[in-house]
């Protein structure tokens, strides 16, 4: 992981060291196509726009209104049909179904960089899908394991916990689920995991599903919501049931709402990814590739910060809270 970060740093330094305008023929134009409207992707968009401004690149952004292949593909196709985009930075909404559409975009001459989620198995060097330039994202599986350990410690290493996720067959949350369940199975055998359940990235559904589980398992000790909406929805259900503070909630994604819940003591741990880094680096990689750099790493783990009551005011950690401005 360290080596990959060094490679990434090298690529950035190589680009930064080039005098402006020394890149290959003309300015490049980048398309940004995240998965859906949410604070995580909004911070990523800030990263994309910051890098674009620093490098003098134009960015065209389109955001699907909900998470699904029928929402992402038409926007992708239209962006490719524009004919003026050299790169598209995107979060594929299904790791298998979107292979075809992104391959078609690549064939049409638009290079692809995936952020947050990947296509195939994410190994663009040796895996079944090799055409994207790079995959930048969190080590979601490791994050799931860290959350599992943290939750196990908070609940006394025994009890029942609920795993609430968004959509099946999405690389990012799938890896979080895997890390969480495997860590519990391997290191915390006295903890029973209910789920994973899928709320289809809908906060209302997340609340409903958590409320149901609370009814069935009055002794529920913890809930892990694998993304923004799952975590916020689950916290609402716990609060409504008057169990705030008694049921340990671990949230993925440090949105303002999740941080508020952390302050109120409803949530014990918030895992912050680094979407700004993902967006910024992706643009840098595109610029580097356009300038002729050939050693762009195929996979960059952007890392995360775990926030809890002890460190949330520490500026070294609070800077990772997702602020949309």
């Amino acid at each position, binding site marked *: 992981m360290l080596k990959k970060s060094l490679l990434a740093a090298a690529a950035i330094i190589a680009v930064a060291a080039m005098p402006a305008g020394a890149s290959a023929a003309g300015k490049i134009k980048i398309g940004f196509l995240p998965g859906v409207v949410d604070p995580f992707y909004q911070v990523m968009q800030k990263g994309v726009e910051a890098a674009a401004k620093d490098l003098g690149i134009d960015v*065209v*952004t*389109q*955001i699907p*209104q*909900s998470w*699904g*292949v*029928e*929402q992402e*593909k*038409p*926007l992708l*196709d*239209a*962006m*490719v*049909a*524009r*004919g*003026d985009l050299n790169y598209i930075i995107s979060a594929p909404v*299904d790791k*298998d*179904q*979107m*292979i*075809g*559409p992104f391959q*078609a975009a690549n*064939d*049409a*001459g638009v290079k692809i960089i995936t952020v947050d989620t990947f296509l195939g198995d994410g190994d663009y060097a040796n895996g079944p899908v090799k055409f994207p330039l790079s995959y930048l994202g969190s080590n979601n599986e490791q994050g799931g394991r860290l959350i599992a350990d943290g939750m196990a410690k908070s609940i006394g290493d025994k009890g029942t916990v609920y795993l609430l996720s968004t*959509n*099946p*067959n999405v690389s990012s949350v799938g890896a979080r689920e895997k890390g969480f369940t495997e860590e519990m199975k391997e290191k915390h055998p006295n903890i029973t995991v209910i789920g994973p359940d*899928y709320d*289809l990235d809908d906060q209302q559904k997340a609340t409903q599903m958590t409320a149901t589980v609370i009814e069935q398992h009055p002794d529920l000790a913890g809930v892990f919501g694998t993304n923004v909406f799952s975590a916020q929805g689950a916290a609402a259900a716990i609060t409504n049931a008057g169990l705030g503070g008694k049921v340990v909630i671990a949230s993925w994604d440090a949105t303002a709402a999740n941080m508020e819940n952390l302050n109120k003591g409803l949530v014990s741990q918030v895992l912050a990814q680094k979407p700004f880094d993902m967006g910024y680096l992706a643009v840098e990689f595109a610029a580097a590739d356009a300038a002729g750099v050939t050693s762009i790493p195929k996979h960059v783990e952007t890392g995360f910060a775990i926030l809890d009551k002890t460190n949330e005011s520490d500026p070294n950690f609070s800077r990772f809270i997702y602020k949309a401005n």
Partner: protein
Amino acid sequence: MTVSHAAAGGPPVAGLSPGKRLVLLLSRVWAWLFLAVMVLFFVVAVPIVGSATFVSIRNSQNILVAIVPIVLLGLGQTFVIISAGIDLSVGWVMSLGSVLSALAIRGSASFGAPIWLAVVIGFFAGALGASVVGTINGVIIAKLKVPAFIVTLGTSFIVRGVALLMSENTTVIGLPDIRAYGNEAMFYYVRGGGDQAGFHFLHPPPLPTDMLRQLDRILQWPVVVTAVVVAIVMFILHRTQFGRHTYAIGGNLEAARRAGIPVDRRLIAIYALSATTAGIAGFLSTLEYNGGSAVIGDPLLLSSIAAVIIGGVSLFGGAGTIIGTVIGSLIIAVLTTGLVMLSVPAFWQFIVVGVVVIVAVLIDQSRDLIVGRTSRGSES
């Protein structure tokens, strides 16, 4: 009698002043006009704002591909709304069709069937499975006299559960590579120079990787399949007794019954047809994405209803055309594509579509006012 005029897709025109007749004509073609004006707007605006051109082979073909699910869902919906009903289950039936065909394709391939046969089996699995749902809808609506809104809402939930269960709550993957069926095309065009330039039929010319960007696909297979289905459904609606009966039922249910039309049987067939076209849409999406998805159809339901209404199908029942639904779908797809090309957030499409839908309903109501027809007390 008025039945023959209704079959032409509109209220009787005899006995109206020329002015009223012109207004009536405009009210019927306004969707075409709106589409033409919108296309013209984008043709002019897109090159000014950016370096793209709106009129290109790739763009026009993208639009055709984008309207495939909306048109197919809209076809059945057109029939249903003309009969003064509504089918809220088509979104989830499409998902069920996608899951059923994916499972069938995967299953038959694992039993050693050649890919083309697996695809055919998948088609029938998706279409026939969906038609079962439609038949159930029709039976409850016709025989048990429950309003269509409620029945189809209820079955949409049931179908949703079935689709999620059958797909085991995930995308159905592991199919043989059938992307060619969903993404290859009837014609190919190679832009620019080179010895492979020009049109090719059925098979793409072998091209080196860096020349691939000059390859355009014309009439991708899902578009061809949709065109065939549209032609068949148009024939049924405008040239068969079944179609005339559909208009009659929508015009006045009781009068249709008294005129000897087997209303119950027709209603069952209408809802079965609606579900079948939705199932075909699901099958095509399985081909396009090489996988079955239980969540694929839900967001498309409202778009398909909007397309049907924009296309001029009267909410009172008894009037409407298939071509209108196609025009309505095109309006939505052209709008989305144009906005992306203008670098305007695609969310604006929802505002525009919403306004156009309301305008369509107002025009529909004023059309009936002009002719002096009041809203029928028919079942809806």
